Structures are given as structure tokens and as C-alpha cells.
């Protein structure tokens, strides 16, 4: 069974927010809420500054604390692609999953349930890329099976320097940034 993940080339990302708009349109994300977003990280001291632009979302962690802490089993790891999902009919809106996520990737949908990126599972099941990946004008986003050594994401991780976000939080995130 596949283990889906994303590889994002920060050298190509220009922060155009096409991925954000595509996600909102594809998933009908309510106004004022975001399943994905752009983070700009500037580090160093003038004049030796560096900047990394990242498109961020739920990291679909291998050790998802949001799933462990959920008291009803609404947050779960889907067998298909090991994607972390929320069953809306089981969620009581206790917000423990929001507090447990070191990436603050979740929010409470106006209808009351916890919501977040689904890797566009409805598209992936149909053999398509997630909407954010499909629309990226610089082709900086790559989606695929991390367990398949021949997949594009695996080959990129084998050949390029990369990092994940907050590895110290111990959740084993599955979104990697090429630097």
C-alpha cells in the first residue's frame, strides 16, 4: 500500500498562492479559512540574508498526534495512501487535535468539525494529483508514493538536499522541502 507524501522545491516556489486558491476552490474551503498557506522565512543578518518561500499544509505525519489524541476515532489514518483524514460525522469538535498539531494545520470548520488538507484524496483516488500540485505554475510541487523508490518524490529525495518542518516535534512529517 502506498504512503503518499509531497516534495516541494523551495528554489522554484515564488509564493504566487495559486496552490492556496486551487485548494479553496477544489475543496470549497470557507471564506476566512485555509487548508494550505504560504510561509516566508527570512534568516541571517544583513547583508547575508537568505529567504525560503514555502507552501505549507497538513504534513500527514507518520506518527500523527492528532490521530492519537482524538477521543472518538474521527481523526484517522486512511488505508489508501496512509492519508490523515477526519470523519466529519464522528468529530465532536473538542479541538484536542488542533492543540496537538505542531504545525497548526487544522481549524474548526464553520459547521463544527475539525478540518484540514486531505491531499485531495478524491482526486488522488481518480489518479490525479492534488489540486495544489496540479496548478503550480513553477512545477515546484511533487506528489507521490514515498515507499516506491522509483517514484518522482523518492528520486528527488535521493538526489537533492531536503528538510522537513519541526522534525524535533517527533511526528515524522511526510512533506519535504528541497533547498
Amino acid at each position, binding site marked *: 500500500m502506498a504512503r503518499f507524501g509531497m516534495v516541494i522545491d523551495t528554489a522554484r516556489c515564488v509564493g504566487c*498562492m495559486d496552490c*492556496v486558491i486551487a485548494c479553496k476552490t477544489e475543496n470549497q474551503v470557507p471564506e*476566512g*479559512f*485555509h487548508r494550505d*498557506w*504560504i*510561509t*516566508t*522565512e*527570512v*534568516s*541571517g*543578518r544583513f547583508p547575508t540574508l537568505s529567504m525560503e518561500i514555502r507552501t*505549507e499544509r497538513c504534513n500527514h505525519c507518520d506518527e500523527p*498526534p492528532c490521530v*492519537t*489524541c*482524538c*477521543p*472518538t*476515532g*474521527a481523526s484517522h489514518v486512511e488505508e489508501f495512501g496512509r492519508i490523515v483524514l477526519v470523519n466529519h*460525522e*464522528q*468529530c*465532536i*469538535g*473538542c*479541538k*484536542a487535535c*488542533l*492543540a*496537538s*498539531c*505542531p504545525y*497548526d494545520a*487544522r*481549524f*474548526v470548520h464553520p*459547521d*463544527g*468539525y475539525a478540518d484540514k488538507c486531505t491531499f485531495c484524496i478524491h482526486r488522488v483516488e481518480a489518479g490525479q494529483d492534488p489540486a495544489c500540485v496540479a496548478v503550480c505554475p513553477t512545477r515546484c510541487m511533487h506528489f507521490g508514493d514515498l515507499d516506491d523508490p522509483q517514484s518522482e518524490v523518492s528520486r528527488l529525495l535521493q538526489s537533492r538536499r531536503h528538510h522537513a518542518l*519541526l522534525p*524535533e*516535534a*517527533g511526528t515524522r512529517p511526510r512533506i519535504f522541502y528541497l533547498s
Partner: protein
Amino acid sequence: MTELTTTRSNPMVDPILHVWGWEIPVYLFLGGLVAGMMLISGYFLFSGRWRNARSACYVLPGMSLVLLSAGMLALFLDLEHKAFVWRLYTTFEPGSPMSWGAWILVLVYPALAANLLMRVPAPLRRRAPALGELSDRLVERPAAPRWIGATNMILGGLLGVYTGVLLSALGARPLWNSALLGPLFLVSGLSAAAAFVHLTARDAAERELLAKADNGFLIAELVFLALFLIGLLTASGAHARAADLLLTGPFGALFWVGVVGLGIVVPLVVQLLAVEHKVAHTPVAPLLVISGGLVLRFVIVQAGQVSHWLRLAGL
């Protein structure tokens, strides 16, 4: 230096997590207070003090039921998807402290009801004579009070520890990443419950006993608080910054004045003098202890939501 800029602006999440308002601290406080009351009334039953008709163990179970129900109402008010609350009881999730808590609460109610049966209030006895007869049969059996007392103590301990573990299991918030939160909240609940008995006891010997016990609980609370902070300060940078939120940061005044000063040290000094008969017992000290327990839950819950693995400027 690192500067982060994000386009995200999700309600309750940005710019700083604030998913839990007043409801959760109130629930954790009332849960801890009831846990303490169950331990004390359970001990009174177990040790045979229930034979004293003026014992607080006849007041505590009824009060516990009222306070716990108020706490659960606060918890319910916090839920965003209220119509689905019954989903808590369609599964047991062993990794989720909240699931453990939901099931512990199911056991706590009958344990408190059994405790209440030790002496059915007269008006209730008149309306439901069967309850009175059941109570009489219970009291006649020497083992029954001991079993009910032991069950109340065990469940009270679990309930008290759970209120802390609920937070400490959320690894994304460094302030809560301490196994000491469980015992800290338990001993704080015990201290508040002892203060409640100190305040309301009709039996002078019991009031004296609980004042002495409360002094022990307050000292233990100070020790757990110190160990909790030392643990954070000697862990990662994120944990040390989280501890600074309480020590010198935006929650410093509330922590030092509301929790440590007025909530622990001042009532401890007053009660130490009172049990030595150097000053008279005053309701001010136990009232301060109870309000200090509430402020502790507010400070820990709110500061915990501010604490983060990311470096946030000015926090």
C-alpha cells in the same frame, strides 16, 4: 535571526492558538476539585469516620455530583460539534486521554451515587423509601463502606491525574510536555477539596484535620510546581521559553501573584499559624486556596496554548 511571515489566518489558530477559552480551565478545575473530594470522602468512608453523623463525607458526594455536572456542562459548551457528543461513547481510544476521561466519568457517577447512599437525605428518604432501605442495608454490611470508600479513592485519583494528563499528552505545546502536570493537578485538586471541607466542616476535629492536610497538599503543590518548571527549564529551548511565559513573560504576574502568592504561600502561612493556634481559623485562607486552584488551571491552559515549537518574536 529568523523571521516568519505567513498568509494563514485561521480563526482560533492564528496568530496564536486560542482554541480553549474559559470552559476547559473551569472543567479541569472542577474535575480536580471533585477528584479531591472523592479521595477525601472515600478515605473517610474507608477509615470508619462515616460513623460520625456530622462527618463531611455526607456532604461531599452530593456536592461532587453537582460540581462535576457543572464541569461537564462547561466541557459540553466548549464542543464545536455538540450534536455528535454521543460519539465519545461509541468507541474507546486507548491513546487518547480524553477518551479515558470520558469513560472514567461514566464510572465516577455510580461511585458517587453509591457514596451518597451511605446516608440518604431525609426528604429523599421520604419520597423514595426504597432508597432508604437500600442505604440501611449498606450501612449494616461492614465491608460495604470500605469498598465504596476504596472505589471512590481509586476513581478520584484517576480523575485527578487525568485532568493533567489530558494536557500533557498534547506534545505540540511545550508548556504541557510534562508528566508532572498529572500529579500537580491531582494535588491541587486535593488541596482545593481539603480547603472546601475546612470551610464547610461541621465537626471541629475534621476541620482541624483537613486544615493540617491542606498544608501538606499546598507544600506538595509547591514542590510539584518547582519540579515542573525545573523540568521545562532544563529541557529544549522551546520548553525553556515556555517556562519563561510563566516566570517572566506575559503570564508572570498572574502566576506569581495569583497562583504562587495568593493561591499557595499566603494561605499556607495563615493555615500553619491557625493549626498552631497562633491565629484563629479564617475562611479567607481556604477561599484563597480554592481560587488559586482555578487560577492555576487558567494560567496553564492559556499559557500552554501560547507556547510553541516555533520561535515567536516577543513571546
